[in-house]
């Protein structure tokens, strides 16, 4: 189990997250759009999952455990600040 969902709507990404986790995460985020995401114990994540994070303009609690995630994927999510605002501005 790499995706842990708490009753409060919190999500924890743990270990190596697969593409199957992407669907679960998406479903959860649809239900709890403001859910907190914690990826501090996440080693690696499948592209499908990263794609969901980006689409949800999520800002997970980090830094993630995996080096690649920390160095390359985390900035993708954080730099999205302006885009997030832009999207919200349009809506």
């Amino acid at each position: 189990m790499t995706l842990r969902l708490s009753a409060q709507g919190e999500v924890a990404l743990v270990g190596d997250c697969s593409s199957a986790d992407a669907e679960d995460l998406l479903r959860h985020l649809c239900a709890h759009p403001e859910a907190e995401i914690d990826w501090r114990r996440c080693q690696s994540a499948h592209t499908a999952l990263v794609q969901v994070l980006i689409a949800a303009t999520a800002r997970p609690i980090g830094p993630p455990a995996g080096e690649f995630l920390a160095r390359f994927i985390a900035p993708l999510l954080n730099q999205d600040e302006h885009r997030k605002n832009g999207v919200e501005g349009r809506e």
Partner: protein
Amino acid sequence: MNEFVEQFLVECRELIEQATDDLLTLEGKPDDSDRLDGAFRAFHTLKGAASIVDFDAMARALHGAEDVLSSVRAGDEPVTPDLISDCLTCLDQVSRWLDAMRQDGEIPADADAAADEVARRFDRFRAGVPVAFQPLPWIEALVGRHPDVGATVALRYAPDRDAFLRGEDPLRFLAALPSLLVLEVEDSGPPPPLDEFDPFASHLVFLALAPGSPEAVRAVLRGVGSQVEIVDLAPLDPARAGDWPELARGLLEAQLQLLDVAQPDGLLGCIGSAGAVVANLLRHAGRLSEVAAIDSAIAASHAARRADVLSEAIRRVLSGALPAADRFEPELERRIPTETAARTLRVDVERIDALVNLCGELLVAKNALGHAAVQAQTGMDQSALAALLKDQHGVLQRLVDELQRSVLNIRVLPMRYVFQRFPRLVREMVVSLGKPAHLVTEGDDAEADKVIIESLFEPLLHVVRNALDHGVEDAATRTAAGKPAAATITLRARRESDNVMVELSDDGGGIDVARVRAVAAERGLATSEALSSMAEADLIDLVFSAGFSTAAAVTSLSGRGVGMDAVRTAIERLGGRVAIESRKGLGTTVRFILPFAVLVSRVLTVEAGGQWFGIPLESVLETVRIRREDVRPVGAAKAFVLRQRTVPLIDLRETLGEPGDLATGDELDVVVAAAGGRLGGLEVDRLGERLDVMLKPMEGLLSGMPGISGTTMLGDGRVLLVLDLQELLQ
């Protein structure tokens, strides 16, 4: 080399020939589905053959072309000259690998880079992206955002929508790059609302920057195939756009060093890899026009087995002096000999069977002869013995004749062997000259001795080149003259008794006799009086004189001083003759008349000063008897007049330094012969007979003997020296 590899090489050559032929036909007739199928099959089979010998790089290079041809078959892709060129380039590369393999039987070590290069040509068909080498907007933006990270490679990775379903994880591929510098997600507008988001489809496009070589990056991302574009950044440096960036310059210089120290056994590999690097650099620098020049330098360097040809080209790249149009044509000629000589002959089983049968019959004849010998020993009646021997001799003669014919038949090759190389060459010449023309070949099946076929390419190439360069008018002139804009060049071969005729006709403007006369006078080939009284055919024949060239402008194709005289020399060396016919406004035909077999030569035997000589019968015009007083001294030499023509008289004894008494009779026998466009009379003591001889070239100490082309043994054990008339009449 093991048999397996040998077989592989032979088969691949045949497949390449077939594919080339099909592709060239297809270019002219894009709807010819048979040819399309043929080309596709050839590529497919080549790919299969490559896999069998574990030559993965070759299979990869062919795969792209096979895919494209498959799309053409499906009607998804039109046949374009570019597509044909790409497929031909792929075959060229395979051909180069085969050449390298022929040396040592090993798969070339540097094949991977070249394979990538070839495979990349076909990427654009698959991905539908613009030609990969041109600077793309995303690169500039990406590098602009990260100017100082030290990246040398940029990549754009757009996974297919169903990449996840195939089990691919694009980020995992990217994470495998050892030293990724920058990773971005291409901004494709606001993401769709989460409740419409499809988590199973891949939506992201990644942009990345990395250090190192594009080849290294490509190697890591090999599994991703055409979903990724990889671009070398080094030459894009805008600050030094005109010049080579330091890194590129360093790379180019490294290639020069590599070539400098190349050892003979690794030479071809060095040339290949150095050339591939340079071509890549040029391509990425957008200097596409120079790529062709480097490509031909690589080919030339390969063929000549000399690194300096490529080195020179690289130096010119460095100094910016490599002209785009430079096709390195002179080297084209140098590459010919290595390519034309077939190491192996494919012989029809029937011909071998015929030989086996002959062997059996010869055995029987030998036994019969032994029987006759026993009879002679036991005191058989003289006349009965003579009859028996005569009988046996008759049988032997028939068998030996047949044996000779059969052996010669084994050495024959069809004309196709040399003809098939011309469609491709003509295509290249047409592009470089800008005169539309197409080539028609007839009589591909006509056969001739292997030596003849293999030596024909060079003279034919020269004649074809001449026809396109000088013979064929440009499209406008042709249209004005009421001819089709595209010229037709016909290469024709046919067997005529003991000869093989090879003709090259063009429907161009014909030879301008007035111009020939003017040029001949200018070059001092003959006095203007002689020229004005000369018959038209004789004038046209002057184009075979050494140093004759009427091209107003020297082009890269012809006019390099090797004129038609070289053609004549080459053909006569094979025991043939060259003739030329031209009709103003209608075209020119150059005809080679060649012996079917070179081994057997018909000679006329003559005696001079006690020694017997053979004169090649094809050179003998006539034998005449003249009166001694009709011989006039001309300077230090002698001459006589025959039907209003002055013919120099050559005394064989003197010329060849044979001792012997001077003949003193009132009349002398003279053999009038012609060779190399010159006429001469040979003074002989006695005329002998006509003989078929197997000519042996002079070897060892005798090889330098002037005026003698070879020797042969006569029936009574005497040695017959066969004269080299071309040398004697000079």
